[in-house]
């Protein structure tokens, strides 16, 4: 492989890492509170609130039902407002984050929902406030499940980032299309595919071991 190609691929890798890293961070930061609010306001939660739950739930469902490729185009105006352009790596972060936030919200909600009511009840019987229950019971007890969910998010963001790349977002996907496909360079195609597979493998492994490390509810 030529020097140029190596530089090209490195550049693509960095771009992809940037897109995935930034959109993961943003979607975690926004999705975590979203998931917490969904789970505590749900019927049977610690602060049930039908209107809040209904509205957020609807929003999340709408967000999740729009295919990423359409979402990307549809929110171009928003992207322009936020980053000043609709093309490039930074511009791709906006639709990536927007599509991942509802996903993370649901992942966190369902992780919290798995927690036995009895444990929450025990905390209530000890005089815990709702905030203390969230911080000291719900999140720590659901941590392994949340980590698994976030791993899943990162991995799907890697896939979506390649798609974003294809329409001008940069990164490995962009390189695969422009060089591997349009210029018939199978070695480039292969290199990008291997890089993507390795990335996914790495995050899956890291996520799984972190999740297992924080999980204490099984014997062993």
């Amino acid at each position: 492989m030529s020097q140029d190609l190596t530089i090209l691929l490195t550049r693509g890798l960095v771009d992809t890492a940037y897109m995935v890293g930034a959109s993961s961070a943003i979607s975690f930061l926004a999705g975590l509170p979203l998931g917490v609010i969904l789970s505590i306001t749900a019927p049977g939660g610690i602060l049930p609130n039908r209107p809040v739950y209904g509205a957020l739930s609807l929003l999340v469902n709408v967000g999740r039902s729009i295919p990423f490729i359409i979402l990307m185009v549809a929110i171009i105006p928003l992207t322009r407002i936020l980053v000043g352009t609709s093309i490039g790596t930074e511009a791709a972060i906006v639709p990536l984050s927007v599509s991942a936030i509802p996903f993370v919200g649901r992942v966190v909600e369902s992780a919290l929902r798995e927690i036995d009511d009895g444990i929450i009840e025990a905390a209530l019987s000890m005089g815990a406030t709702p905030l203390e229950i969230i911080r000291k019971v719900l999140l720590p007890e659901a941590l392994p499940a949340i980590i698994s969910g976030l791993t899943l998010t990162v991995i799907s963001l890697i896939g979506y980032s390649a798609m974003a790349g294809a329409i001008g977002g940069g990164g490995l996907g962009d390189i695969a299309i422009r060089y591997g496909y349009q210029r018939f360079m199978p070695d480039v195609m292969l290199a990008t595919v291997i890089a993507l597979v390795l990335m996914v493998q790495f995050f899956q492994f890291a996520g799984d071991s972190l999740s297992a490390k924080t999980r204490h509810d099984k014997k062993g």
Partner: protein
Amino acid sequence: MIRLDGVSKVYRVSDPGGTAKKNFHALRDVSLEIENGAIYGIIGRSGAGKSTLIRCVNLLERPSSGRVFVNGVEMTALGDGQLRAARKKIGMIFQSFNLLANRTVYGNIAFPLELDRWREREIKDRVKEIAQLVGIEDKLAQYPSQLSGGQKQRVGIARALANRPDVLLSDEATSALDPQTTKSVLGLLRDINDKLGLTVVLITHEMEVIKEICDSVAVLDAGEVVEEGPVLNVFTSPLKGVTKELLAQVTKTQLPDSFADLKFLRERDSRQADVLLQLSFFGSAAARPMISDLVRKFDVDVNILVAHIDHIRATPYGTLVIQISGDEREDALDYLLDMNLKVKVIGYVARSNDTAH
């Protein structure tokens, strides 16, 4: 003291089949007084409302009407913040332990102290002290999944006691444990009650548990207290069918299968028959050598078919089924009726040589 004053709990439930909602009374006008330092049992069949009742004490369940007092504080009148403060002085343990899976034993016991804003140093000392009391001081670094059921419940008890509560509520705390472990956990509760003098309210569907450690008992049936009082009183003279039914768990009076072929006679044919009696005795009567008395005083033979003696805390009680034959059996019967014994004539059986040996 804990006082429930006309407590009712009504749930709106959908009618089976229909879409209409109707009221379901899980508790109906329950009034109880529980002395400080007592071990008070609440027993009833499944669905009687026991859990609902005990959850009304710390207001995990808010009564639909009525008032709840704990140590003079009207729980039902407290605001959210005050209620949380009051709950910190009411420990609770559960059938399914409800420990935090991702915290060590230490972390679990420390949890209520963190909520009560104790300093780290003090938490450390207190956790060690209370772990010692319940006998799990060597498990502090382990996670609940690494413990046996009995050990988990000890952690639950330690957690409930950490913040020095005045009251301990127990919702079927031993129902998930085997008989041996149940005994040791009940023993621990009694010890704690002795040592710390705190009031224990426990609910159970097992008379065995009441018998083992309670001073007083309330029998709950379909949301109502149908019987209430010191355990011995309720045991010696159960008034209600439910109580008798529950009591049958611990006073086994049915004849063993080997007597199934006994032929019972109608009473008017009984002149020449043997009489079959069930004697129940409580307290000092249990210690009297009454069978030998009987044989010495009257011209009768006594055949013991079933004997069962047990203790309610320190008081012996028991049941005997005896067969009396002989000419003076009616006099013997009168003599027994005069003693401090509960005598029930089970029936008359044909006098025969091959019955019951």
